[in-house]
């Protein structure tokens, strides 16, 4: 098989070749590294490429394969969002603040993936500290959408999404606080899953908003998504918010049949703001889902949906304002000089953080301040409970909800950079899912003038199997996922 064909494989296809020893992990890895060399000048998905480490890990994987070990991810090259701590490999969060920060420990998901035989080809670009929806907030450079390099790949996991779409890796990890896996996955026509809060350990994920953050897979198809989810899920005693629920074999949920499933179409999501072409794509998708045996329920309502964005932009910045307080230049990372200790700490934050990060720290600091706490933070927590309850009620009648991933197709670089609020609206369909701690899956759902549209499936807590089943059936019936961008 030619290198260009190798890199186009899904993880499970590659694993089959590796298992039959038709290709070695080193060969596969070399092909991926070559691909990165060929296209990343245009895509700019990677903050740090790790070719030497990748080849070393590939050799190790080949030894394991030689010894008879088999596994769906053993020897498969992947990319890791640069907000996940990797021992010995710098983890920048695409921020000047951590430009030279080399973690002395691995995130839990890294432990799990290394066990599964990960070959890490690099760390991918993101909006600084995962704050953004276009990857333009990276302190280093923006990432480009492989389907149209004048457009954004979405964000914050734009680097991971673009890398998967451009065949610069076979799968990737992202993190999702308000849509940061799903929105870029939708923009790049790949599969992305935000697991139920607590499904995947956050240990080693640099915190943005602790009660919303979740690590998840970004993959070329639903099968890979299920495999990666299985590899990274499970209880971790180091994360007190990680769930003890047993991890099923997610691939067993992958059946191309939706009979007996009731899918809800929440009214509030199909309101103004949705691009007409996106709406059309959704209608086509709903028809397809019905053909596959699902019952479509259009009488579903989530009345508090319009408040979700406001709730999110109070809670997430509040938590972020505390989470980012540790970057004071004293112990690690960027450190600016100053006449006094206070001045040095001030300068460190002034020059170490970018404008969006500062904006959110200020928002959160304000929302938590004496005299404002009740009106903002506390009120937002109450509405959060309301939103959760509404979802609970809806899931009494539906197995999953179907919405677009984003209201629009990918926008142009710079198009929304001047208007934070316009940018925030890009996550309007994904944010409620984090607020309620639910799982959300996005699968490719077609194209509008060559630009991807994503379909989002939302489920009740720990119903990843249902979402994967719906996503798989839809994917098999449409094959949008097989299209490749031309680069």
């Amino acid at each position: 098989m030619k290198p260009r064909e190798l890199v186009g494989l899904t993880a499970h296809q590659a694993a089959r070749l590796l298992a039959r020893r038709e290709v070695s992990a080193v060969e596969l890895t070399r092909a991926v590294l070559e691909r990165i060399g060929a296209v990343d000048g245009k895509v700019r998905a990677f903050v740090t490429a790790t070719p030497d480490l990748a080849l070393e890990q590939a050799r190790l994987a080949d030894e394991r394969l030689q010894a008879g070990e088999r596994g769906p991810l053993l020897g498969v090259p992947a990319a890791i969002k640069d907000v996940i701590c990797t021992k010995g490999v710098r983890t920048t969060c695409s921020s000047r603040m951590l430009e030279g920060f080399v973690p002395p420990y691995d995130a839990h998901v890294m432990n799990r993936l290394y066990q599964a035989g990960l070959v890490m080809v690099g760390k991918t670009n993101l909006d600084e500290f995962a704050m953004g929806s276009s990857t333009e907030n990276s302190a280093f450079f923006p990432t480009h959408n492989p389907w149209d390099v004048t457009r954004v790949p979405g964000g914050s996991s734009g680097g991971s999404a673009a890398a998967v779409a451009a065949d610069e890796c076979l799968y990737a990890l992202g993190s999702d606080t308000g849509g940061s896996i799903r929105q870029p996955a939708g923009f790049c026509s790949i599969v992305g899953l935000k697991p139920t809060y607590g499904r995947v350990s956050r240990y080693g994920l640099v915190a943005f908003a602790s009660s919303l953050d979740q690590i998840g897979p970004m993959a070329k198809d639903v099968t890979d998504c299920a495999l990666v989810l299985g590899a990274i899920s499970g209880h971790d005693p180091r994360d007190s918010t990680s769930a003890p629920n047993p991890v099923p074999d997610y691939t067993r949920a992958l059946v191309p049949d939706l009979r007996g499933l009731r899918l809800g179409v929440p009214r509030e999501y199909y309101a103004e703001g949705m691009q007409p072409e996106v709406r059309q794509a959704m209608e086509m998708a709903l028809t397809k889902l019905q053909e596959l045996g699902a019952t479509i329920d259009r009488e579903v309502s989530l009345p508090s949906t319009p408040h979700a964005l406001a709730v999110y932009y109070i809670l997430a910045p509040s938590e972020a304002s505390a989470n980012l307080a540790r970057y004071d230049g004293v112990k690690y990372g960027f450190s600016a000089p100053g006449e006094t200790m206070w001045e040095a700490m001030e300068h460190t934050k002034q020059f170490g953080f970018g404008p969006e990060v500062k904006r959110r720290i200020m928002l959160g600091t304000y929302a938590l301040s004496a005299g404002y706490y009740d009106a903002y933070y506390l009120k937002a927590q109450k509405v959060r409970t309301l939103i959760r309850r509404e979802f609970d009620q809806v899931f009494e009648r539906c197995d999953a909800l179907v919405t677009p991933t984003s209201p629009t197709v990918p926008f142009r670089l710079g198009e929304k950079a001047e208007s934070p609020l316009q940018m925030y609206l890009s996550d309007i369909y994904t944010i409620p899912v984090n607020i309620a701690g639910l799982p959300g899956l996005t699968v490719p759902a077609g194209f509008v003038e060559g630009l991807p549209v994503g379909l989002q499936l939302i489920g009740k807590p720990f119903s990843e199997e249902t979402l994967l089943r719906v996503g798989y059936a839809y994917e098999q019936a449409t094959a949008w996922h097989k299209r490749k961008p031309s680069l």
Partner: protein
Amino acid sequence: MEYETVIGLEVHAQLLTRSKMFCRCSADYAAAPPNTHVCPVCLGLPGVLPVINEQAIRYTVMTALALNCAIAGVTKFDRKNYPYPDLVKGYQISQYDTPISHQGWLAVEADGATRRIGITRVHLEEDTAKLLHRNEPGGETYSLVDVNRSGVPLMEIVSEPDLRSPEEARRYLMKLRTILQYLGVSTGNMEEGSFRCDANVSLRPLGTSEYLSKVEVKNMNSFRAVFRALQYEVERQQQVLGRGERIVQETRGWVEDRGVTVSQRSKEEAHDYRYFPEPDLPPLALSPAWVEEIRASLPELPEARGERFISHYGLSPYDAGLLTAGKALADYFESCLTLAGAKDKPETLPKKAKEVSNWLLGEFLRLLNAGELEVEQARVSPAGLVRLMGLVEEGAITLANAKQAFEEMFRTGQAPEQVVAEKGLAQISDQEALATLVEQAIAANPRPVADYRAGKEQALSFLMGQVMRASGGRADPQAVRERLRERLRPT
């Protein structure tokens, strides 16, 4: 106008858990080189998460129960935000509105009365790193950060503003420390900083019940410092009010060597800590069954032990109170009784208990106080004291010389037999030698002899003193008395 003193104390006690509050690092950092008891979690590196130390929760519940507090059914942790280089995450994980326990009390004896001092709450948080400020000879100043202390469990015990004098505050603090020591949850060492105290002090016109502007006093590093600082602050406030001025609500620091408090920051400069629930730690349910299990396993506390000393050992309430005021002394006392085999002999137990008590409350405490030592630092073991008492009982040494020997044992850590032999303190048991000393005393003091014979009983004491002195204290006073009476009996 006459004013009433209003004091509330905030005590922070480091807990004696093996590991830190939220990670597996050893909490026993006292002797460790800087930055050796650290890991990504207590260093606050990006991406780490806290995990609650169950033992710390247990210790806090134990303390709360001993202080008659109500235990929360569900408790949670909160983030307290403030920037400082000793706070590695930029926030401290503490407890804000749902502490582990609340509403308790502690009975304190002071100024001739016993009063219940309200306990507002007992909660748990993490200690900060330690900053070491350096001044180089060249004029450069800088600070070093030692993260060993970062994340050590810190229990906060807040009293109601129920204390009415510096003396009562001191007694409260001592009693609280004793309870923590009895529970085995903290060393209670103020000088080493494992037991810290801040005070809120205000005055109000006698007979009124509202609280006026209070001053928070910090930086008191010993019980004496707390007492002195409070005395100073009460007087200072009296003078301010006496001048017709108002008390400024502020934080003041105690300056030990100058004996004054100085303003550190005013109310306007007070931090807004922006507390909010710690999202990394779900609320913690404390099941009633678990709390009851802890209650049932609480060790004997000072008051109960004092009562037992009275009822079992026949000690006076005064002695029992002094012996049980510190756990170490009470343990020492009971070790002595056990080693002496006294507990197996009910008929002589009260007598033996009183003897041991006399030794401990007399010589032992005197020597400890003189050397500013803790019971644990004493070089005389209970076994040493028991053997010394045995020598007295056997008549091998006089009580007076035994006290001398005890001092030597206390100083050197030597065994009683060795001290007695080396210092020549053994009792003169040779009857002829005793007889010679008595004869010499009679011959040298004709007038007292005559006085005694004339019926002046106290003349005998003088003669006894002469014999004892000549013997170097080694004669058995009882034997000397008998022999003198025998010799001077009218014939």
